[in-house]
Structures are given as C-alpha cells and as structure tokens.
C-alpha cells in the first residue's frame, strides 16, 4: 500500500473528522466519540504506513503537493503537503503511539463526565500534530503548531474546575506563545526575504539552494547572516514548544492534565515538535556553518541550549517527589539531548532518539498513569511504594521503560539512540562541553530513574491508597505491553552496525554501517556511567527503602541546600514572577493610568472650557420674534364663505350640473364652430 502525496491530507483529516464528531456528540455518546477517535487514529496509522512505503521507495525525494491558499493579487500564499522519510517516520510514530494512548484513555477516563469532550480534544490534537508533520509550508506548520498549542491548552485544563489545572493551562499557552512570537517573526522575515514559505517547491522552496544562498549572503544587525537570525528566531519557537531552557517552566506544570495527555502530548509528540521543526528546517539552520565571518552560528546556540537543558532537567528530576514531575523533567532533559544532537550536526540521531524516546517515555507515562489510576490519584512517590506485588504487569513494563531511558546497554532502544547522540557530540569540533554535559546527564538519568522505580515499586506501601492498589484492566495494560515491546525492539533499526533508520532519513537507499566497536571507548564509558548511576541510586533508595512518608530523602540528609535548590527547580518560576510578571503588571498599570488620568484629564479640561463658553453664550441671548397674521386670515375666511354657498350637498345636483355642462360644451363646440 502506498499513498500518493496528494492524498497526504487524509492523515490529519481523519482525526479532525473525529474531533468534529466528538464536539457535536452529547455527553452520553461516549462509545461514539471514543470509537470514532480510535477508528480515525487507526485509519491514520494505516495511511501513515502507506506513506512510509511511498517515502522509502525513494528516500532522497521530497514529494510535494502545493496549492494556492490566499491569492493577494501579487503575492500568493501557498500551502502544501510534503512527504519524505522524516515526515513518514514521524507520522507512523505519532499515529501508533497515539492509537495506543487513545485505547489506554478509554480505561483511564472511564468515570469522567466529560469523556466525549476528552476524545474530541485528543483527536483535535492528533489532527493538528499530523498536520504539522505533513506540512510543506512554514505557514501551514505554524498554523498546526498553534493548534497543537490550543489542544494542549484544552487538555491541560481538562479538569478546569481545579484552579491549578486552569492556571497551568494558561501558563503553558502563554509561555509557548512567547516562543511562537519568535517563530512568527522568523517566518515573516523569511517570507519577506524569499517571497515564499514553502519548504520544497521544485527549486523555489526556502530550503532549497537558491533561497538559502540568498539568505546567507545578506547580513543584518551585528553582522549576523540573515539565515542565522531567521534560524534563531525559529529556534525560539522550538524552545517554547519543546520546553527548553529558559522557557521550560510550563512543562512540569502541564502535568496537571490527565496522564494520557501527559504521555501523548507532553512526552511523546507535541514537545518533540520543536525538535522536528529544527530537523525540518535543518538546511536553513546549517547553511551558515561554512560562513567564517558571522559572529555566531545558529547551531551553536542550539547545541548550547540543548546541553544546558539536558543537564538542568536531569538535575531537577533528581529531587522531585511527584511521579509525573520526575518524568516531566526527565522529558525536558531528554529533549535537551535531542536539541544537543541537532546542534552538533546530527539531526538523524536526534530524530532516532525522538522516536525511541517517544515509545519509552509514553510507556513510562502510561505506567505512571496506571499506578495513579490504581492508587486513586495518589502521585507522590513518598506515599506510594510496594506496588511491585499487586501490579506486576505495570511494574515489569515500567522497569523496562526505565531501563530504556537510563540506557541499559545493548538490549534497549534508549541505549542505541543515546549512543548515537554522544557519538555525534564527541565528533563536534567546536566544543566538547555538550559531550560532558550529556555524559553527566547519563549518570543523573540512570540515578533518578532508579530512585523513581525504587520508591514506587519496592519497599512497603506507605499509604492506604497504595495498599489498596491492584492491577488495572487489560484495556490499560495491553498498550503498556505493546509499548514495552517497542521500547526494546525499536533500538535495532538504528544500531551503529545497521543504521537503517539513519540511512533512510539521510536519503540513502543502502545501509552503511560500521563495526560496533569503532569508537568503542565512548560506549564503554557511557556503560560505566549508567552502571554508576543505577548502582548509586539502588544504594541510596533500593537497599534501604523509605519506611515512612515523612522520612527525609537520602540526598537531603547529605546536602539540604543542594536538594532544596533542586526541589525548588532552581527558582525559575519565582524569578520569572519577580521580573517578567512585575514588568507586565507595571506596564498594564501604566497603560491604564495614562488612560484614566492623562488622556481623560485632558479631555475633561477641554470639556470644562466648553461649558464655560456655553454659559457665557446663554447669558447673552434673549427673545426676538412675536406677532401674528390674524387680520389677513379673517379676510380670507370671508371670501371662502361666498364660495361655499354653491355647495348644496346633494349629489344629484352636482351630477346634473356636470351633464348639462357637458351638453352645453358640446353644443358650443359644434354650433360655434370651435370657438
């Protein structure tokens, strides 16, 4: 089955249809809404597989279908679909993970009164996300980009009666919108410079040689090449959406949404959209690499931000107690990894990690969801514990996901993708700092994941909720199992010896692998680091499990200051509240004050002047005219009385007069010879 590119729109259209159906379904139509959403997703999955077949038939080609959307006379805004291996792989991943999460959600939200609405929003999200993937136009991508933001907003705020959820939703939307404004400006600039927003357009697209050559040839403020400036502005959008430093603050709060949402949007797909965006416009980002004069290369910034984020996220994750927050910061950290990979020039490694991460992080989130559901919405790992026994399937799959994330060697997909990134970072000739940050994050990742598993599943149950937990229904466990299998197997499409995925993404039809042990030193090092991380984690949390809810964390015992800073997430939220928030309030107060006092005051002053003038005028005025015409009227009345005597009031008389008058007239005319 292969899919012509003209029909690519069907992939997002199916979930969109399901979303529309869901919006119109009344609350009681639960089966209808969820069934339609799942069917649509399955359909999209099949179509995506078809698209993948098409793309793999000629991996180097960028199949496009463009059409005019808005004709402005001289400038025509064109949109289009694009099919290449990047799009196809992403589509398959999104639809597959999405399908599993949809199925999981039918169990997770079984008791929610707004069940139909949830599937409407989920389908809307899926539609927007898939639209974003198939877009061949930065504008279409931006439209879908904003729509996934909307869907994310709606889903985070799904339990809108919780003030924290409503606030988190708003925060997520606003924070990502800050980044989006950068993207918007970048897009405007790009459009203004090249006259097109299509990625590929038979040589006319912005990612093709002509346009790129033009962009890199001009310079702008500070000697930056225009392409660099545009690239950085676009990267702003990615920073916001992918929760990169310094706009990462919304992502942990976004965990207020239902857990399947966290799994789908804030782990597997939407947050990866930033990575996808940079990978998509990679030619634009990379075009300034050869330019010596520019003070800054776009990719350097990407790599730096990525490295900072990876390290910072991993550090904060160590000290979080909410099971979902740990995973959220882990996501931030892993996204940093991907950015790092993009920055150091290996976008295929980034996509490889994106794909594997999507599966195992979705697995972890769904696992945590399973735990939360079983434990009656208890999310605090200090109050959980001992779930290994009652929730065997969840435990096993969660442990597999944890090992994949930690990078336990050889068997797990996370290992291979992470190796690819570290390998690329080692090969970056600008700096080795990203490599060191990445290596540090490896240790931390292994450490905090071990902590998480140990606290949640080992030891003894520390609360009533945990004690009464039991395994969930198959509708929730089966997706876990499937995802776990994928988390293991997916690594084998991109091992160094058989880098099938990388080759296809690079547009090659053949696989060029090399020996596993080429550059083996780094691999050994990272294996050792993983072992250290897991070992120390087990030493601190696994051997002597926490016994009471209020017991201090082992690290807190060692260094309360560091642990406090980490738990407070380095105080970013407070910092922003103190600076940006205040500035915002002050500007608003200024704007309002200007209105109330300055402008309105001026108006009032003018009005007072006017009133005074009116007062003077009134005093000067007095009565002018009086008089009548009665005498004249009397005369007219007298004349009229004369005529009225002729009116007898008898109709016969009048008629007779007319008849006689007629006769007389005729006689006069006939006899008088015409007067």
């Amino acid at each position, binding site marked *: 089955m292969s899919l012509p590119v003209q029909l690519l729109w069907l992939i997002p259209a199916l979930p969109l249809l399901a979303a529309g159906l869901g919006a119109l379904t009344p609350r009681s139509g639960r089966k209808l809404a969820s069934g339609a959403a799942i069917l649509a997703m399955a359909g999209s999955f099949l179509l995506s597989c078809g698209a993948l077949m098409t793309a793999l038939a000629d991996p180097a080609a960028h199949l496009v279908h463009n059409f005019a959307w808005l004709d402005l006379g001289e400038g025509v805004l064109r949109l289009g679909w694009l099919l290449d291996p990047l799009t196809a792989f992403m589509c398959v991943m999104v639809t597959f993970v999405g399908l599993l999460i949809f199925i999981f959600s039918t169990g997770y939200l079984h008791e929610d009164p707004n069940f139909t609405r949830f599937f409407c929003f989920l389908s809307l999200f899926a539609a927007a996300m898939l639209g974003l993937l198939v877009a061949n136009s930065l504008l279409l991508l931006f439209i879908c980009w904003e729509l996934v933001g909307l869907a994310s907003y709606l889903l985070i705020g799904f339990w809108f009666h919780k003030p924290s959820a409503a606030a988190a939703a708003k925060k997520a939307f606003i924070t990502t919108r800050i980044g989006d404004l950068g993207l918007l400006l970048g897009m405007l600039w790009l459009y203004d410079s090249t006259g097109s927003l299509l990625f590929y357009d038979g040589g006319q697209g912005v990612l093709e040689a002509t346009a790129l050559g033009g962009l890199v040839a001009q310079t702008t403020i500070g000697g930056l090449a225009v392409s660099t400036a545009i690239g950085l502005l676009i990267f702003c959008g990615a920073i916001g959406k992918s929760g990169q430093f310094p706009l990462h603050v919304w992502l942990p709060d976004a965990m207020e949404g239902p857990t399947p949402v966290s799994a789908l949007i804030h782990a597997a797909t939407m947050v990866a959209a930033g990575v996808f965006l940079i990978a998509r416009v990679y030619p634009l980002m990379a075009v300034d690499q050869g330019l010596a004069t520019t003070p800054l290369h776009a990719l350097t910034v990407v790599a730096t931000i990525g490295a900072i984020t990876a390290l910072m996220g991993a550090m904060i994750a160590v000290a979080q107690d909410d099971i979902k927050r740990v995973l959220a910061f882990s996501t931030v950290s892993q996204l940093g990894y991907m950015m790092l990979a993009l920055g150091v020039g290996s976008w295929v490694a980034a996509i490889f990690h994106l794909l594997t991460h999507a599966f195992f992080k979705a697995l972890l989130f769904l696992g945590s969801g399973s735990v939360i559901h079983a434990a009656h919405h208890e999310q605090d790992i200090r109050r959980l514990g001992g779930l290994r026994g009652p929730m065997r399937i969840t435990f096993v799959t969660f442990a597999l996901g944890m090992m994949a994330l930690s990078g336990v060697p050889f068997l797990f997909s996370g290992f291979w993708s992470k190796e690819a990134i570290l390998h690329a970072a080692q090969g970056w000739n600008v700096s080795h700092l990203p490599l060191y940050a990445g290596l540090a994050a490896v240790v931390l990742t292994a450490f905090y994941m071990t902590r998480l598993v140990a606290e949640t599943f080992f030891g003894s149950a520390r609360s009533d909720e945990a004690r009464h937990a039991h395994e969930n229904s198959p509708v929730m466990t089966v997706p876990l199992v499937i995802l776990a299998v994928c988390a293991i197997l997916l690594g084998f499409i991109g091992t160094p010896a058989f880098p099938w995925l990388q080759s296809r993404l690079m547009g090659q039809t053949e696989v060029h692998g090399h020996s596993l042990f080429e550059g083996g030193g780094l691999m050994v090092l990272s294996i050792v680091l993983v072992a250290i991380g897991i070992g120390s984690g087990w030493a601190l949390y696994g051997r002597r499990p926490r016994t009471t809810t209020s017991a201090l964390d082992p690290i807190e015992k060692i260094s309360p200051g560091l642990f406090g800073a980490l738990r407070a997430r380095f105080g970013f939220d407070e910092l922003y509240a103190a600076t940006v928030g205040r500035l915002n309030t002050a500007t608003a107060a200024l704007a309002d004050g200007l209105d109330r006092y300055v402008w309105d005051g001026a108006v009032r002053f003018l009005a007072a002047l006017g009133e005074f003038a009116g007062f003077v005028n009134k005093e000067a005025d007095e009565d002018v005219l009086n008089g009548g015409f009665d005498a004249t009227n009397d005369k007219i009345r007298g004349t009229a009385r004369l*005529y009225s005597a002729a*009116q007898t*009031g*008898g*109709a016969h008389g009048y008629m*007779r007069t007319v008849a006689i008058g007629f006769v007389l007239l005729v006689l006069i005319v006939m006899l008088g010879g015409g007067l």
Partner: protein
Amino acid sequence: MILTPLHLCLILSSALFCIGLIGALTRSNAILVLLGIELMLNAANINFIAFWRYGPNPEAGTGVLFVVFAIGVAAAEAAVGLALVIAIYRHQRSIRLQDARLLKG
C-alpha cells in the same frame, strides 16, 4: 351616411351611457346611483373595445389593455363605493342620496 359597425357600437355605448346617466340622476337609492355609474363606465369600455377593434392598429392591443385597467379601477370603485353606502346607512339608517348632505356649504 353609411352606418358602419363602428357606428353601431358607438350608438350602443351612447345608449348604455345615457341609461346609466338617467338612472344615476333620477334614482334616490345610492346603490342604484352607483350602479348607474358602473354602467357609464362600462359604456366607456365598450368604446375602447370598439375603437380598438375597428381602429387602424388592432394588433397593438392598447384598447384591450385600457379596458383591463378600467375594469380593475371599476372594481375598486364599486367596492369602495358600496362600502361607503353601507357606512352611510349605518350612520343615517337611510341610503337615500338626498339624505346625505352633510357637506352642504
């Protein structure tokens, strides 16, 4: 003098007109007066048709159109006139025309 069909028609219409006129002039019943006037209108219509039929350009159909309009107007006139009669009757309990001389100057 030759009596053409047109002459005949015109005589017919004159006769009808005068019958209507005499009726209107002599009868005291307002309804009959109105009917007399209707007859006069009809006589005029007969003239239109006659002149159309024997006129120089019967294809144009102007006479016919004129009559159509005249019939419409006559119908309106009859309706309003008789309504007036009823109103007068209700007011004065009489429809003798000479009783209705409110407008005497």
